[in-house]
């Protein structure tokens, strides 16, 4: 076994233990329903949990993430069996169609997620503190090389990479789901997701709904983790800090997202759910058990967002280098602050709204059940009070990356720095009073639609300030276009498309036609690709040398860009076009009489091209870690502090404290730069 590379050992374990889990699930299922359901939910869930855990066992051995996952599986079983036992004593059915009953699954999933946190070891220090044992602030290095990414680390740079890689993994899964249902949409009528299909207790259209709904939420979680990734990695470096303010909380914020991702994936196998990512009741009050796994997954992931943003805010307030006043903060830090303010105060609302539906299902509380005096529209208000500001959580960090990188590649100061900084806060603030524009057709008070239309259109003003300022930054610059800059420019144009396709939805009269059509789908993909995906890739290409000491391949990066960008334009234009021709969103099949087949086919091809370009990116990413060109010195000739020290970044960041002596983007001013390192004071000991 010693000679097998860890990765291939992981794959071997995945196959073997996946089969074992499948067999175990099949046997348990047989005991319950007295028939062999080969594509049923129970064998699938057991196979998923076993295979996923075994992969990490093979790669890494029984420690770190593997121990967490094993504990999660055991915790789920113990919690589920506990509730099954209590139900048996109460005279209720102990087991159900999916092996456990719904209450068992919910409680088991919750205990499983908590067990993961104990198992992975992220609570160790806090547990020691409760027993009065002191722990060192600087962890000794238990792991070296790639191994440190598979276990709890308190280093913000390791956590940043963990976040980023998890986000990339989830993007792949969410993208894969999209390719499956996008293929079904390539033609009208049902091709392979037919009503005769039976997979995980779902027929074709039900599976379509599950995949489409999960595509939405998995992408959202991956965006939250992706932004957390570069914010975690970069913000302390930009501030000149050694680490985040609360390193243990930082590790906790990351690790709590792993069981959340497992829960989200479990929902697909436990009957799925057919509500879209919005989970509107009463439909979500009737959906299969998978709905509860989805609610719990989002609930748990929410902790990651809330605690992570708290950490960022405290870090920015308390840990800036000497001389780094408000107007000398790197602009990305301003974006991170605006994002943190939203995530810290709004995330609770989505958790709450989902929790209320969970309780409605589990305990019969009629929050949204009209038969019990509940109100389904109330859910939408609670849900969108987070979920609209959430889109600014997705895009503000990306827009921050654009503002941060643009001056470097234009060799000119960021035009209107203060205005851009304030526009982020402006967007965050206005974002809190626009949520009901998702509900213009919902049956809420119809006169309230007018103030929400005004407030929504107001978002255009701070967003416009950003666009105008970016263009003015480029005006008369000395522009060069390596890969990160290409993605910055792509991000600007794509986000502009997203911004301009927004007002027709904000204006009530046209929204009454556009709402719930594919036009919205196109608009949304434009904003998210422009505000997150393009800047995220820009950030990876830009800071990759800082993290690894090697550069990514420039040619492959350009192929990635020039393949993805045109394909993306074709995809979203196609989406908007079919939407304007009467294509509803979230449908598995469309009326052939609408003549949408040709456009849908092109959109599907474009989606596959985007996937291909991302595969090229992945190859470049993993290949460059080992074989990339060595990064020497200040790779991008930036004024930013992290580029004034060697790459990869030293473990404890800056050896000498730094002091801000100039403007962050003072390109062309001929000054002595943004920062200087302070020589330690002469030792005063006698």
């Amino acid at each position, binding site marked *: 076994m010693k000679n097998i590379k860890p990765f291939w050992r992981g794959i071997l374990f995945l196959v073997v233990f996946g089969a074992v889990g499948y067999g175990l699930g099949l046997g348990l299922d047989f005991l319950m329903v007295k028939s062999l359901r080969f594509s049923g939910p129970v064998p699938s869930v057991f196979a998923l949990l076993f295979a996923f855990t075994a992969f990490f066992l093979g790669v890494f051995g029984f420690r770190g993430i593997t121990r967490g996952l094993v504990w999660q599986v055991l915790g789920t079983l113990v919690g589920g069996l506990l509730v099954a036992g209590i139900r048996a004593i109460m005279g209720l059915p102990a087991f159900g169609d999916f092996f456990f009953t719904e209450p068992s699954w919910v409680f088991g999933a919750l205990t499983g997620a908590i067990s993961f946190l104990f198992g992975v070891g992220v609570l160790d220090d806090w547990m020691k503190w409760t027993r009065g044992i002191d722990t060192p602030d600087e962890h000794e290095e238990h792991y070296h090389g790639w191994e440190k990414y598979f276990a709890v680390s308190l280093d913000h740079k390791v956590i940043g990479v963990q976040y980023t890689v998890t986000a990339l993994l989830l993007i792949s899964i969410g993208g894969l789901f999209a390719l499956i249902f996008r293929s079904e949409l390539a033609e009208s009528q049902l091709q392979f997701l037919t009503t005769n299909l039976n997979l995980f207790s779902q027929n074709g259209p039900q599976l379509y709904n599950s995949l489409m709904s999960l595509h939405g939420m998995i992408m959202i979680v991956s965006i939250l983790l992706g932004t957390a990734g570069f914010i975690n990695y970069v913000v302390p470096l930009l501030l000149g800090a050694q680490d985040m303010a609360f390193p243990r909380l930082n590790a906790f914020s990351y690790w709590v997202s792993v069981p959340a991702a497992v829960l989200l994936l479990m929902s697909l196998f436990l009957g799925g759910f057919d509500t879209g990512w919005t989970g509107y009741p009463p439909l979500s009050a009737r959906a299969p058990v998978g709905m509860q796994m989805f609610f719990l997954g989002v609930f748990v992931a929410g902790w990651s967002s809330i605690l992570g943003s708290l950490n960022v805010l405290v870090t920015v307030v308390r840990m800036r280098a000497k001389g780094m006043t408000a107007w000398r903060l790197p602009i990305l830090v301003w974006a991170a602050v605006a994002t943190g303010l939203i995530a810290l105060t709004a995330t609770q609302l989505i958790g709450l709204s989902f929790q209320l539906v969970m309780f409605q299902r589990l305990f019969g509380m009629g929050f949204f059940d009209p038969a019990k005096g509940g109100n389904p529209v109330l859910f939408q208000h609670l849900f969108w009070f987070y979920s609209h500001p959430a889109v600014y959580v997705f895009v503000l960090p990306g827009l921050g990356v654009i503002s941060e990188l643009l001056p470097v590649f234009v060799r000119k100061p960021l035009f209107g720095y203060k205005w851009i900084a304030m526009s982020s806060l402006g967007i965050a603030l206005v974002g809190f009073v626009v949520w009901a524009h998702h509900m213009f057709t919902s049956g809420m008070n119809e006169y309230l639609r007018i103030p929400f239309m005004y407030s929504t259109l107001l978002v255009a003003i701070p967003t416009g300030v950003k666009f105008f300022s970016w*263009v003015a930054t480029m005006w008369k610059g000395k522009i060069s276009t390596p890969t990160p800059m290409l993605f910055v420019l792509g991000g600007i144009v794509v986000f502009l498309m997203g911004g301009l396709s927004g007002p027709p939805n904000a204006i009530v009269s046209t929204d009454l036609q556009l709402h719930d059509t594919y036009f919205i789908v196109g608009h949304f993909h434009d904003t998210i690709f422009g505000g997150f995906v393009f800047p995220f890739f820009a950030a990876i290409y830009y800071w990759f040398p800082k993290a690894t000491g090697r550069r990514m391949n420039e040619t492959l990066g350009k192929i990635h860009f020039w393949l993805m960008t045109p394909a993306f334009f074709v995809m979203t234009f196609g989406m908007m076009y079919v939407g304007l021709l009467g294509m509803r969103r979230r449908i598995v099949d469309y009326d052939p009489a609408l003549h949408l087949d040709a456009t849908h086919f092109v959109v599907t091809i474009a989606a596959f091209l985007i996937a291909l370009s991302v595969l090229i990116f992945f190859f470049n990413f993993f290949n460059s870690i080992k074989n990339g060109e060595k990064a020497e010195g200040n790779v991008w000739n930036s004024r930013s502090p992290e580029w004034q020290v060697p790459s990869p970044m030293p473990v404890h960041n800056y050896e000498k404290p730094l002091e801000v002596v100039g403007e962050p983007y003072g390109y062309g001013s001929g000054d002595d730069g943004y920062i200087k390192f302070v020589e330690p004071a002469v030792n005063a000991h006698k």
Partner: protein
Amino acid sequence: MYHFVIVGVLVILMTILTYMGIDAVGLARHMNPVSASAQAVFVDQMWHWEIWVISFLFSLIVVPLVYSLIFFRQKKGEMKDGEHVEGNTQLEIAWTIMPLIIVVIFAYFGAYTLGEERRVDPNAMVINVKAQQFTWTFEYPQYGFFSSELHLPVDQQVVLKMESADVIHSFWVPEFRLKQDVVPGRTTEYRITPDLEGSYKVRCAELCGTSHAYMENPLVVTSQADYDAWVQEQIAIAAASKTPEGQGKVLATSNGCVGCHSADGTKLTGPTWFDLFGSEVPLADGTTTTADEAYLAESIKDPNVKVVEGFPANVMPAFSLTDEEISNIIAYIKTLK
């Protein structure tokens, strides 16, 4: 200075080109498909203005961006920085105030067009709409009959009083340019004045479950004379349906059964009723059963006891029907051969 002049001219050209491009695919002056209501005129007018503004703002950003990329590139080997310009407060104020003015004007027009769409005709005709998974049922209260097709006379305002039996649905006719959710526990209103005769479809726009994609019912806009003839026909059918099978057909329509169970052998969300009575039905557990009265009654009351092969369980909602009503529906099923 000449850079600004060139860019200004290019922005105007680009605006016109963008508008013409959108117009070339037929989406600038109006949305698609064809507009078929008095309200749609205002929506299309608003859309047309929006396309002009979008074309202009798109050009205003993209033209100087691309221009800079071409003319302000760093030459090979050049290591110089650009001009040290940190900003211009007057410019920033200008591009804050100008969009603010545009936005307020636009919101005003948005509110104005919405007001026109919602304008009430006191003589509007009332039709009751019931939405359920996965069909629409239309009740004409002044005549007392139900229909699974919505027939409307042209140039007459109707107000639809809509209720849902289960989950949230949304009433949408793309040609009418209006959409309104149908929410359990309340009555929502949809006011429309069709102005173009033709056949359209009512499509559910809010995800409502497995067969959401197929929740489409026919909509026919006809002349007043044709509409009156159709109404008389429906009244006659309703009057003739005093027999058990006639009552059964009315119940099957008013309860929405026909939305999922076809009468002509077509496979919809549920098994067809055509030639069903007396046939051998294959079940999901591998056995078969004879479709007799007992089986049909059981399947209406508790559809998940015997699930037909090829159809998922837990799709059909529960109905509150009396035993007599159920036997009437079975009598109707018997006639479908």
